[in-house]
């Protein structure tokens, strides 16, 4: 039942995204950015990959923050459900920061973001033994652009299969 709900939520999110991106193509670039960000947290799907059907691999953060948004918590609950169904799979949580910070602080910030995701997975029953945290700071952006939208895509924690 719970899974069903998650699936439904994901569908809703996907539907919303489709609507938004459909609008975006018709309007100005500025609207496009607005449609893909809430505050300065990325809400688009351009860079998102899927661990399984309906299980996005990453969550996004506001500037200098490591707080999980409602959408992020939903993504992580989907990941936790998927991990419970696949008990032999271990994951690496890769934490990242955008380029607008000093290198060393960003390494720590990436670690803090990945740990926020780890803590949440653990509260949904995933053992810490199955999770490794790895921070890349600002070293591995997905979008090389120097603009607010690119930065929002880069402030992320990505869950990667380790085996």
């Amino acid at each position: 039942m719970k899974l069903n709900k998650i699936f439904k939520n994901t569908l809703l999110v996907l539907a919303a995204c489709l609507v938004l991106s459909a609008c975006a193509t018709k309007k100005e670039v500025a609207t496009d950015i607005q449609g893909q960000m809430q505050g300065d947290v990325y809400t688009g799907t351009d860079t998102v990959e899927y661990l399984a059907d309906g299980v996005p691999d990453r969550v996004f953060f506001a500037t200098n923050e490591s707080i999980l948004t409602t959408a992020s918590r939903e993504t992580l609950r989907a990941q936790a459900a998927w991990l419970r169904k696949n008990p032999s799979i271990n994951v690496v949580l890769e934490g990242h920061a955008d380029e607008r910070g000093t290198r060393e602080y960003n390494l720590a910030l990436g670690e803090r973001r990945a740990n926020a995701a780890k803590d949440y997975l653990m509260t949904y029953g995933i053992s810490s033994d199955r999770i490794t945290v790895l921070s890349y700071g600002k070293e591995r952006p997905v979008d090389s652009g120097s603009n607010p939208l690119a930065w929002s895509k880069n402030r992320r924690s990505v869950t990667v299969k380790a085996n």
Partner: protein
Amino acid sequence: MTKKILVLLLILIPINANALIEVDITRGNLNPLPLAVSPLSIDEESRKGFEKILKKENIGSEISNIVENNLRTSGLFNPLDKKAFLQAPDIANLKPRFEDWNLIKAQALITGKVNYIDDKLRVEFRLWDVLAAKEMMALAFTTVPNNWRRVGHIISDKVYERLTGEKGYFDTRIIYVSEEGPKTQRIKKLAIMDQDGANNKFLTLGNELVLTPRFNPASQMVTYLSYFKNMPRVYLLDIETGTQEVVGDFPGMTFAPRFSPDGKKIIMSFAKDGKSDIYTMDLENRIVEKITNHPSIDTSPSYSPDGKYITFNSDRSGYQQIYVMKNDGSDVKRISFGNGLYGTPVWSPRGDLIAFTKLHKGKFYIGVMRTDGSGERLLTENYYQEAPSWSPNGRVLIFYRETKTNSKGEGFSAKLWSIDLTGYNERQIKTPTDASDPSWSSLLSN
């Protein structure tokens, strides 16, 4: 690897302490001192000898060019055009005709001579006060011919010291991170070069991500962060032997390493469970000590030159700010209170200032403040720049600067820059590839 120690020298001829020329380096120098660097003279036999082993047609001129370039880039001196020189180098070195040098407005004159003796390079040079018509300094060195560049740097340091009253910074090296490839998949290697960009060498192959190399002030050791086997850890590298080892046995990421001023400890951050604290490890007995203990991010630590204090940045107030504490972690005080975020504090080798990176309203600044946080002075503003490192005499800062990338992914670059403590004389240091995370060595001689 050959340890490039300068094999001796020093005939110090007594000098007149009441020289007239003095260069004030405490203010921005808008009128650099005009001086003439006469090419070091060389007899034909010596010239041929060096041409054979060093593949340089005239090693005397080459060494003077190094001196001239160093003094010019310091921003404090204006080396005059050699075409205007009236007196031949060999004669000038014996006894300058001061009125000739005065005529071209030189206030100081450097002359000298190079000899090839017993497979060694012997160099003597003199510094003259043109207005007072006096010799200010005379020195001679003997070394292996391959050290000819260092001889140029040492002469530059001696002249700088004699004319400014402060130690120079020319006989030094810079370790940095060489960068290549697309921004999303940057290949990074450790690289080292002389302070003037010569003798560039790569120390790692680029197989793993490497960051933030820092020199040991007391030896030719370097500490840096490597992602070897995808485990970001602080490493120690001996640049003479190439030996590397991981520092300490931490169950997670260690980063932001620096040496203590005596070179006996490494101070760094260890990240665990979303918190980063500062630790030290004694390199002799391997004892690890935890210095800060706070649920915040504490990183980028740097010792005061006497080793008694540590400055670092922390977001314990909610945002990244600069703090100072005693070396045991007690007595933590926040010192940055201006608008914006403050990071990467580095204590000046002179002890009186802390250099930092500041982020305010979308711009990055390199600045300095006193160690109690007063007297904040911003030296340079740009789109992105950070991580200042001091010249060993505490007069110049080197840092790196990145340019914007447009939406097509074009326009990105990372380069090394230096700027005087006065805020003047900003210049790019040329590197064969893009570059970041520079760290300045101590003086190699003395």
